[in-house]
């Protein structure tokens, strides 16, 4: 048995609230505990998703949340993995449970983010690629997203209208999600009428940065059973594999790919391998998936992810989109939560928010955005420096 149970999930709504990340994390944690009806004093492990933009308290997020909830002697851990932070924190909690070293683990991520482009911390760091890419190239995060988007246009015939349709769909999905920051219909013309940030991506193609928090209470299946839960949502896979050398797709924040002239490139791209490892671990295939939450840092990236997850063949995501198959009610709804399009990114919380959404979907509690009969859900995201994750949950 290598499953663990998702006993409770909770979020602090995404937005621009101007409070401390700790407040969001505590609110999300208490919501998850309340959802599971488990007292804080039962928690024997707290894993924090680190935020690197909030002083020392952010570096030691596990400690910060455990202390804020009230020191109870629990073990703590703090994980950092850029956008995959939440999934890696979840992975640590799962491993401790499966190793028999924890029964009730609380995983928390929260962030307070500045307005505008994400930029490096202050100071000159001539050996830090994340600093140098701004200094030497003016290469922002959206510029990387735009490179991927442009390839869809030049290689597969995607259009800016297709990208806009992703936004339209996700905006509609998120309309009644109480934790979403943006809850407003958006038309294709709105997207195309918004300023171009990095050609071909418009402002409304790119996700904002938000404040927010999310928490997941993981327990052993035994603990869940002792509490009368015989059919909890279960974590079936957490993939956090790294690339294989040479990585031949340019990856934020780097200046170049690896050199493919000596060692041949592997058969799968990094993002494909993330999903592949998740399916292998779960013993499931793309056909088994009922719902997906993927990292739509840009609208076009959602289309990439559908193919990386094997939900359709390479170059065909636009077809599914145009046919409405990725909308709730379609064959494979993508981002029923509204995705990053409706939330904006709160780095250490985001991968956990995906797990929260899938949990609600698999329990049939996603009011106003429910994917009917969903039994298997998958998430995907990618962070800087070879980080990424794919989590599979099932009922």
């Amino acid at each position, binding site marked *: 048995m290598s499953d663990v149970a998702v006993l409770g999930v909770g979020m602090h709504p995404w937005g621009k609230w101007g409070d401390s990340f700790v407040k969001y994390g505590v609110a999300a944690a208490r919501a998850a505990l309340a959802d599971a009806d488990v007292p804080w004093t039962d928690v024997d492990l707290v894993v924090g998703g680190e935020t690197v933009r909030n002083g020392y308290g952010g570096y030691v997020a596990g400690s910060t949340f455990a202390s804020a909830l009230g020191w109870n002697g629990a073990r703590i851990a703090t994980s950092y993995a850029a956008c995959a932070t939440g999934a890696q924190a979840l992975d640590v909690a799962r491993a401790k449970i499966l190793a028999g070293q924890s029964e009730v683990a609380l995983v928390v991520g929260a962030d307070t983010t500045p307005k505008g482009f994400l930029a490096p911390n202050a100071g000159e760091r001539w050996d830090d690629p994340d600093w140098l890419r701004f200094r030497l190239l003016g290469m*922002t995060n959206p510029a990387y997203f735009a490179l991927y988007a442009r390839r869809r246009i030049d290689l597969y015939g995607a259009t800016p209208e297709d990208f806009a349709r992703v936004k339209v769909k996700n905006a509609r999905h998120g309309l009644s999600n109480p934790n979403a920051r943006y809850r407003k219909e958006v038309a294709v013309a709105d997207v195309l009428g918004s300023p171009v940030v990095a050609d071909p991506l418009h402002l409304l193609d790119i996700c904002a940065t938000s404040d927010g928090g999310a928490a997941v209470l993981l327990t052993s299946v035994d603990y869940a059973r002792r509490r009368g839960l015989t059919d909890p949502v279960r974590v079936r896979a957490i993939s956090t594999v790294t690339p294989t050398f040479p990585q031949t797709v340019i990856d934020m924040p780097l200046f170049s790919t690896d050199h493919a002239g000596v060692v041949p490139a592997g058969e799968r791209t990094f993002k494909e391998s993330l999903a592949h490892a998740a399916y292998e671990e779960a013993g499931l295939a793309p056909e088994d998936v009922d719902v997906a939450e993927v990292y739509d840092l840009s609208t076009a990236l959602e289309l990439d992810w559908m193919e990386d997850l094997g939900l359709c063949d390479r170059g065909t995501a636009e077809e599914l989109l145009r046919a409405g198959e990725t909308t709730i009610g379609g064959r494979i709804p993508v981002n029923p939560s509204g995705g990053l399009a409706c939330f904006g990114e709160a780095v250490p919380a985001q991968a956990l928010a995906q797990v929260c959404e899938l949990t609600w979907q698999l329990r049939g509690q996603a009011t106003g955005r429910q994917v009917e009969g969903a039994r298997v859900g998958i998430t995907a995201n990618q962070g800087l420096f070879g980080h990424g994750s794919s989590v599979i949950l099932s009922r």
Partner: protein
Amino acid sequence: MATPAIDGWFTTGEQPSLLGTRCVTCGCVYFPKQDDYCRNPGCDGSEFVEHALSRTGTVWSYTDAQYQPPPPYQPPPGDYRSFGLAAVELPEGITVLGQLADGYGVDDVHVGSPVELVVETLYVDDEGPRTIWRWKPTDLDGGTR
């Protein structure tokens, strides 16, 4: 006198080129330079020689920066003007980012179109102009676009 915005990453003559390193043990090329350890998982080489990358390649993808990037980006003097960016595949099998040369934008390239390396002014500080490598489209009409 113009000086590079960063030391040792590129040459500045008539035929400028990016400077990387090559692992003496396995032959893998690195840009930016890798001097201490080889990142080929099958190689534990630690000796490297400087290696000039190909000056020409083809566009892997491209975009532009229509808003001024945040610091530590240093804007050139005057009002903000957008600039192009491209990831370029070099024949030896490595893809390298760079801005597009002054005056060129996203309409001047497409996936697969050829470019060559030039060196131009990135910004100006107390010590004068600071230069950077850029990709210059070389076949403005021959594309399939």
